[in-house]
């Protein structure tokens, strides 16, 4: 399935997220994948996913302008494909 604005998701508990100057590094201890998150706003969204009932709510809470929402949906969807983010 792909992630939409209505999806409830969270950082996979097997993932360690390490903040970096360019954004963050995410390492998945299950599949051993290393993922580079290169946009600090996306990092903030990922860290906040579990606190809100949908992705849209997270974006609203973080004050992301709706014009930018499609790119965030795409980013979280790609993180879902690489198992960094999971649907809850």
């Amino acid at each position, binding site marked *: 399935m792909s992630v939409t604005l209505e999806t409830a998701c969270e950082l996979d508990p097997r993932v*360690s997220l390490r903040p970096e100057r360019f954004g963050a590094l995410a*390492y998945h*201890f299950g599949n051993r994948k290393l993922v580079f998150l290169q946009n600090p706003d996306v990092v903030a969204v990922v860290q906040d996913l579990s606190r809100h009932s949908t992705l849209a709510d997270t974006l609203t809470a973080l004050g992301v302008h709706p014009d930018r929402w499609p790119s965030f949906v795409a980013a979280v969807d790609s993180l879902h494909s690489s198992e960094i983010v999971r649907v809850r």
Partner: protein
Amino acid sequence: MSASNLVAQLKQGLDAPICLTWEITYACNLQCVHCLSSSGRRDPRELSTAQAKAVLDELRDLQVFYINVGGGEPMIRQDFFEILEHAEHNKIGVKFSTNGTYIDATSARRLASMNYLDIQISLDGIDSATNDAVRGIGSFAVAMRAMDHLRDANFGAFKISVVVTRHNANQLEEFKTLADTYGAQLRITRLRPSGRGIDSWSDLHPTQAQQRQIYDWLAAHGESVLTGDSFFHLNALGPALPGLNMCGAGRVVCLIDPIGDVYACPFVIHDQFKAGSIFDWGGFTNVWRNSELFESLRQPDSVGACVSCGNYDSCQGGCMAAKFFTGLPLDGPDPECVLGHGEELLRSAAVVIIPKPAIDHSRGVRLNLPQPISVR
């Protein structure tokens, strides 16, 4: 941010390594002719269990994701499992390399019960004739027995780790089949002229024709074969192979050796690439963040003699260790430059001075080789 911007950022270094290699002992029961750390005898200064655990605590605080544990033969340490369990407790992933000697049915079951653990069984030939010529008589059978134990203990997908040489470069497909048979993953890495490899490299490194084969084979197999990003010097042959295509030494990776010295990478155990010691003021963290050596490695690359070639963006001038231990300038071509610039430079140089490794723990006599390996 584009991929090249990311690489530019990584080249400036991170506050902590993504991963690092930690060689926990120089002791080894084998005497492989290409051993990168010239291992054999235990060093009396080897870190104690308490010191080793303190290293792991510091790496936990730095949020280092995983460590590559090697040696020597890491399982030779009496406290091997204690160290492993402390890493697991600290949520640090461990990938350890072993020749398999100490993996029996019992230890295989214990290893299979652990989390965050990857095992790399070193194998440098698809048969005992090829493997044992480099790793010593009986080492092929030992590695195969270890793999059987891991399979029987349901360890899961362990790794078969191959250093590609002139003698096994034509066996890549067979290695892949062997790995598939065990439900294992194949990992192939580049031979460097480091440690005892200084003496054996010229006999063992792949030919130019084989480098092309390796490139084509890797290009065809994509990310199903692990390489530790070690073949980026081949990228001048065509589209880039999977990976970051950069040297990570002192930028995103480094080496802690068995006595706590910190080097830029596992292949440069030499004073020139020693950044400090974990026992220095500020510990490993300060060495990583502030050592003069690592700061210099994070400066923009010097393209040097490669500037006239036009392929530097592809191959990045190759591997620092390979250049250093063949006597080539660090801002010149790699000795295995696929366009032959390295070979040409080595041929035409009036004098080539090969540096000696900082420390050598080889045993006095090298035993158990089926045939003599000529020394340059």
